[in-house]
């Protein structure tokens, strides 16, 4: 029987990995992927807790998160494509139009 703390630790490692990816990588795609990793870290955590607490709420919430992550990925990729076509940029630090 794997203790619940192991799931939480895996989840934390995944989350921090994603967070570092978002903060330090420049490429749009990588950043998007890191965001997905963070979401999945949360999913792991939720499912583990659902199992641990014997409640279906966590699993249902996870299904929502997966659905929303799909939508978010679609919108994000669309934006990336538009930016890429218009400006030929692939890095987030080249885009700073939305400032004061």
């Amino acid at each position, binding site marked *: 029987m794997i203790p619940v703390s192991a799931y939480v630790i895996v989840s934390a490692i995944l989350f921090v990995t994603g*967070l570092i990816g*978002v*903060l330090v990588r420049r490429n749009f795609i990588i*950043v998007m992927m890191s965001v997905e990793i963070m979401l999945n870290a949360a999913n792991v955590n939720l499912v583990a807790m659902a199992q641990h607490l014997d409640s279906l709420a966590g699993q249902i919430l996870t299904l929502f998160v997966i659905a929303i992550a799909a939508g978010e990925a679609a919108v994000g990729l669309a934006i990336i494509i538009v930016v890429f076509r218009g400006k030929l940029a692939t890095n*987030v*630090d080249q*885009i*700073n*139009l*939305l*400032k*004061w």
Partner: protein
Amino acid sequence: MYDLIVTLIPFFPLLAVLVNGLNVLVGYRYSHEIAHRLAWGSVLLSFLCSVWVCLETIGHPDPRTVIVYRWFFGGDLTVNFGFLIDPLTCIMLLVVTGVGFLIHVYSVGYMRGEDGFTRFFVYMNLFMVSMLLLVMGNNYVVLFIGWEGVGLCSYLLIGYYYDRVSAAQAATKAFVVNRIGDAGFLMAIFLIFANLGTVDYLDVFVRAATLDQATAGAIALCLLIGAVGKSAQLPLYTWLPDAMEGPTPVSALIHAATMVTAGVYMIVRSHAIYDLTPDALLVVGVIGAVTALFAATIALVQTDIKRVLAYSTVSQLGLMFLACGVGAYTAAIFHLVTHAFFKALLFLSAGSVIHALSGEQDIRKMGGLWDKIPKTHGVFLIGTAAIAGFPFLSGWWSKDEILGHAFTHGHYVLWALGATAAFCTAFYMSRLLYLTFYGESRVAPDVAHHLHESPTVMILPLMVLAVLSVVGGLIGVIPGGLEHGWFHQFVEPVVRVAGPGSGATHDNELAYLLMGVTTLIGATGWFLAHYFYQLKPEQPDRVMARMTGVYRVLLNKYWVDEAYDQAFVEPGKAMGRGCDLVDTNGIDRVVIAVEQVTSLSGAGSTWIEKHVIYSGLNVVGYGNHLAARLLRRLQSGLVHHYAAMLVGGFVILVNLIALFLWFGGAS
């Protein structure tokens, strides 16, 4: 039906005023032809309505009140805008609208080609409205409105040639002198209301019996002041001769036939108050008699045809006051009516003479006109005979009645004054006739060149008035004989003297004797004029030379105008100058000082605002500005920065929650 027609009487001229007045204001959208038709047409309609109302009243002589609407009210005071129709009102209505209509028709010819033709008729119709309100009102307030209205129209029409300085001055004089009288009248109204609690004629006359002697006297004298101002009696008569600056139809309508008789009408209307105070009545009589003689003597030597007639009017009005003063109210109204006929006739025919002579008014430059303008001569002759007291003409009946009444009631002094005035009247009117129409022509050659008779539109009203002047007196004798004619029977109920003292015994023999005496007096006056100006034309100059002093006194009108100038006008001007001095040196300086202080403190406030308040506000503004400049750096537009801030915030939040749980859990 009855109410409607009564209301329509003043309404028709009012409508003409509004329509023609609007036409003047919007710049003459229709011609003079339409304007004058509207003007006299409206007066004709009023006249027809008046005749109908008069016929109704003959059937039912009791006073009838027509309330148009409740005008204003509060406390004990209720003033209705209403009309009182009784025989006295009917007589006045017929005179005002009838003579007014004739004069309107005459004016069409007389004023043709004048500037402001339409304006003239607007004023004339406005005058008709005011005069009708004056005679029809059922209370003193409506009377007062009419009273002021006719004063205003008199002012406007005297000053009709407003670009002429003398006309403007005469208009102002008339207005100011009338105001003095009006103040008295106003006080009388206040006294009436204060003591009787109403201003309606019928109520006032019923309640007047409760007045004590002193109050009744005060009211009567205040009313008299008003009447003296409006009817040009001593000492307020000076405006009337000057009022001759107005066009001649105006002199005929306003300053002879109607407006100036308003004072007589008012006294007769208020006779219930006068009957209570024999003293006030005596004052009326004395003022009337003295004025009659005074004005008649001035008229003896005047050389302006209209001024002679003006003084004659003052004198005749004096006679009417004399009649009121001796209690002969019916005779006063009778003389008012006949005077309206023959004086309107005289003024209008004088206007015709002036018209024929291209504006000449000096009788020294007339003479020998009788065959040049025969129709005018004919009617002028009739008018002169009527006023001078030629037997069986209108003036003879009414004047005799007044003098006879004065004599039979024991006022011998008043009778003597009136008789002397009658003698003077006969003399100066005959003199006027002789100097104007007979003897050698003294007309300037260039004027004589286009001497012409007046057009038919002017002659026709003269003819009508001449007929009225001849037969008008008969309403006073047919059918009942002397002092018992239709007129007297009609008017008597209105002026019947309450209580004892009425119904003096009539001595017919004495009456006939007095008639003979006054006829003789008139004939003597005529003969004297005939002798002076026809038989011995050089005689007047010789008499003048012998009596230079008297002549100069009369020619200068007893220097009353000059005396008034010195006594009132000059001190008034001096007071004005004094006030001006105080104003410029005292009040103005204070005002200027205040102004300077204000402007100085204003400058101080401005400085404080600019440098203290604004700077404070600017500090706040700049502070915000600088803070914003710093803080906007946070919004870099780079996703990483936002993500980092998000993470940082998240860390802080988690730590805070942890801290809270830690310590919260511990406690």
